[in-house]
């Protein structure tokens, strides 16, 4: 049979257990607003009973572990959706900046300059010798060229800043992966089911979420508290204690920074996260738009030059170029410029006589001819604006649905891991009551012990 002292130690153990549970509760309450904090629970265990002859006596309770409430599968899903959200956030951001260059409502874009340019030839046809109307053609040509240059250089500037952002984001990735590798080491050494272990897990989950904002990362639970992180293509980023830095290296063909992982070029493999969006904007969206701008610019410039050469200027000489002929390859829009400064060199005449307007009419009618990629300049420009608009609209709607999905998953995660003050209050009362009771047991045993001691004194 047990003795009074073992009863005393039983009561003390329960005091310790309750005290620990109160500590867990107060830690929960303290972290009610901490991002990434998973609520913790004190898990009590009945200690093994002692055998006395035929009887078994309980030995009380112990605080076995402090578990933290998290759902790893949910976290992985959240990480995946965060990658999409990060991607579409950055895409929308970038596309809205691009769209601002093409917005006719805000007075940007090419539409007005194209119309004015061709209409200036119409106007010239009404009085082909009028120096003011001739000057009008050159002014409209200059405005058209500068509208092209403005948009092309705006896109170029954005491309450049996206390129710088690639380097910055790769730096952030490396920073995060090295922190995660360090946490892997600490977690391998930490005891499972302690507050410090739980805090490290929370930290690592947070860091993986941050990493997911930037690129598509796959999380594999490798046991021993380790996670292995790879890119979606399987190139390792973190394995145990080891993190592998991404590198950037200038691609001599494009002049932009490519991303390398352990020696292989992974630039095109990064499809999600803000880095994926940055690369997509820099390497696909903007180059595609620049190519179209070049098609339009060189289409207009060559057709106008050819037609001007078919006519005669005010002096009766054969016409020359109105625009500097665009060089083959990219840059037609960026370098579009007017070749002549003398308005008399506009070849309005179709037969060399001073008052003929035949070629001015022919120049004006280019507006309705398919001189740009099989379309009229106005149609081509409208298509360009529609493309920018629909790319932006699509990214916006995907951003919204990705946002809603992340929101939902965060809600679920909150339902599992979030701290509820009501629960904590109830737990606090429970543990306090149990603590009070155990303390009472101690004082009763103290009294009993006194009684026994008094008995001994009386004898």
């Amino acid at each position, binding site marked *: 049979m047990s003795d009074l002292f073992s009863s005393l130690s039983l009561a003390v153990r329960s005091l310790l257990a309750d005290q620990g549970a109160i500590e867990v509760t107060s830690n929960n309450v303290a972290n009610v607003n901490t991002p990434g904090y998973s609520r913790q629970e004190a898990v009590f265990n009945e200690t093994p009973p002692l055998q006395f002859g035929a009887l078994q006596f309980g030995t009380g309770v112990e605080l076995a572990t402090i578990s933290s409430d998290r759902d790893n599968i949910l976290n992985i899903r959240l990480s995946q959706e965060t990658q999409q959200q990060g991607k579409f956030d950055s895409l929308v951001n970038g*596309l*809205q900046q691009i*769209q601002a260059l*093409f*917005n*006719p*409502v*805000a007075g940007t874009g090419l*539409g*007005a300059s*194209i*119309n*004015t340019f*061709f*209409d200036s030839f*119409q*106007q010239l*046809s*009404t*009085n082909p*010798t*009028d120096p003011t109307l001739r000057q009008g053609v050159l002014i409209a040509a200059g405005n058209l060229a500068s509208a092209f240059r403005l948009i092309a250089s705006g896109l170029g500037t954005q491309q450049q800043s996206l390129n710088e952002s690639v380097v910055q984001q790769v730096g952030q990735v490396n920073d995060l992966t090295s922190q995660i590798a360090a946490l892997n080491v600490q977690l391998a050494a930490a005891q499972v089911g302690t507050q410090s272990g739980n805090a490290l897990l929370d930290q690592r989950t947070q860091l993986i979420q941050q990493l997911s904002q930037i690129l598509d990362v796959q999380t594999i639970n490798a046991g021993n508290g380790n996670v292995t992180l790879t890119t979606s293509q399987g190139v390792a980023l973190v394995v145990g204690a080891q993190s592998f830095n991404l590198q950037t290296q200038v691609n001599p063909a494009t002049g932009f920074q490519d991303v390398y992982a352990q020696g292989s070029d992974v630039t095109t493999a990064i499809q999600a996260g803000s880095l994926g969006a940055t690369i997509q904007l820099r390497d696909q969206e903007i180059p595609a738009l620049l190519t179209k701008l070049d098609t339009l610019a060189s289409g207009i410039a060559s057709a106008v030059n050819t037609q001007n050469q078919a006519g005669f200027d005010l002096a009766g000489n054969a016409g020359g170029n109105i625009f500097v002929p665009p060089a083959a390859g990219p840059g037609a829009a960026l370098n579009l410029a007017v070749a002549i400064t003398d308005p008399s060199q506009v070849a309005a*005449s179709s*037969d060399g*006589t*001073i*008052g*003929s*307007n*035949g070629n001015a*009419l022919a120049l004006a*009618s280019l*507006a*309705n001819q398919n001189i740009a990629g099989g379309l009229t300049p*106005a*149609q081509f420009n*409208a298509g360009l*604006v*529609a*493309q*920018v*608009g*629909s790319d*932006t*609209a699509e990214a*916006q709607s995907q951003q919204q649905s990705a946002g*809603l999905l992340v*929101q939902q998953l*965060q*809600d679920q*995660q*909150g*339902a599992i891991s*979030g*701290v*509820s*003050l*009501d629960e904590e*209050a*109830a737990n606090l009362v429970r543990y306090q009551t149990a603590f009070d009771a155990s303390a009472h047991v101690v004082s009763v045993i103290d009294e009993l012990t006194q009684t026994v001691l008094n008995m001994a004194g009386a004898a």
Partner: protein
Amino acid sequence: MPLRVNPNLSTDFFAELQIVRRQQNQALQQLASGSRINAPSDDPAGAAALLENQSQSDQVDQFQKNIQDLQPQLQAADSALSSVVSAVTQAISLGVEGGNSTLGASNLQSLAQEVSGIRDEILGIANTSVQGQYIFSGTLTKTAPYVLDAASPSGVSYQGNTGVNSIQLSNGQTAPINLPGSQLFSNPGGDLFGALQQLITALQTGTGVSAATAALSQAFSLLDNVRTFYGTTLNEFNNSETFLSNESVQLSTQATQIAGADLAAATTTLAQTQTATTALLTSQGKALSLPTLFDFLP
């Protein structure tokens, strides 16, 4: 154990609030601009259609301007030719008078002088310029079409050419806008200056006055016929103007159909989002101040 709910109510609230605010902004933007399309992404196809519509309507404006700019020139030509017609009519009656055999040589001489005066008047009219451009010299608009030339049988020589300019009245429709003097005043089918010179010589010599008068009448009727070109073209201008202003109205109606904001709908949306915002804020205000169990513990 019942399903646990997310104890943090704010995340849902802020997401909802964002959605409502976005709708609110859109409605406000539509009401402010009157347009449904404030950026290409609002309606990419609509934005493209709007651009093409704008391009067409810019062209229509330009066609209208073409007509307005050229109307004075054509009217000047038309009224110049009317003066020529009355001058020639006078010359013909002088010729008829000269054909009367009772007239003496001195009278014929003075008639010849009068006709010669009329010829000079017509020469001046044929050399009419509008805004520094000779309107009857074909496309050599900086060259006076006729100069006196004693060596020429017609007494003048034509310095212009046979060039004819056209302008665009609408897409696919062009109209010539000038007649060269060679068709009006020195037409091989009835050379006006030639006939005048013939009459002057006939009156001076007193022979062949009737034949010369007949030649002048022929040249006159040809001119009277050819000059209807200007009246016809001015008519065509008027028709085109009507057509173009209809088209302009149509295009702007079309633009409104493409991009015009449904103001009633936008106003309703605005009111709805205001209600929704108030409801959200009220409920969130209540939610934030909800008591927890801690408030009831002693």
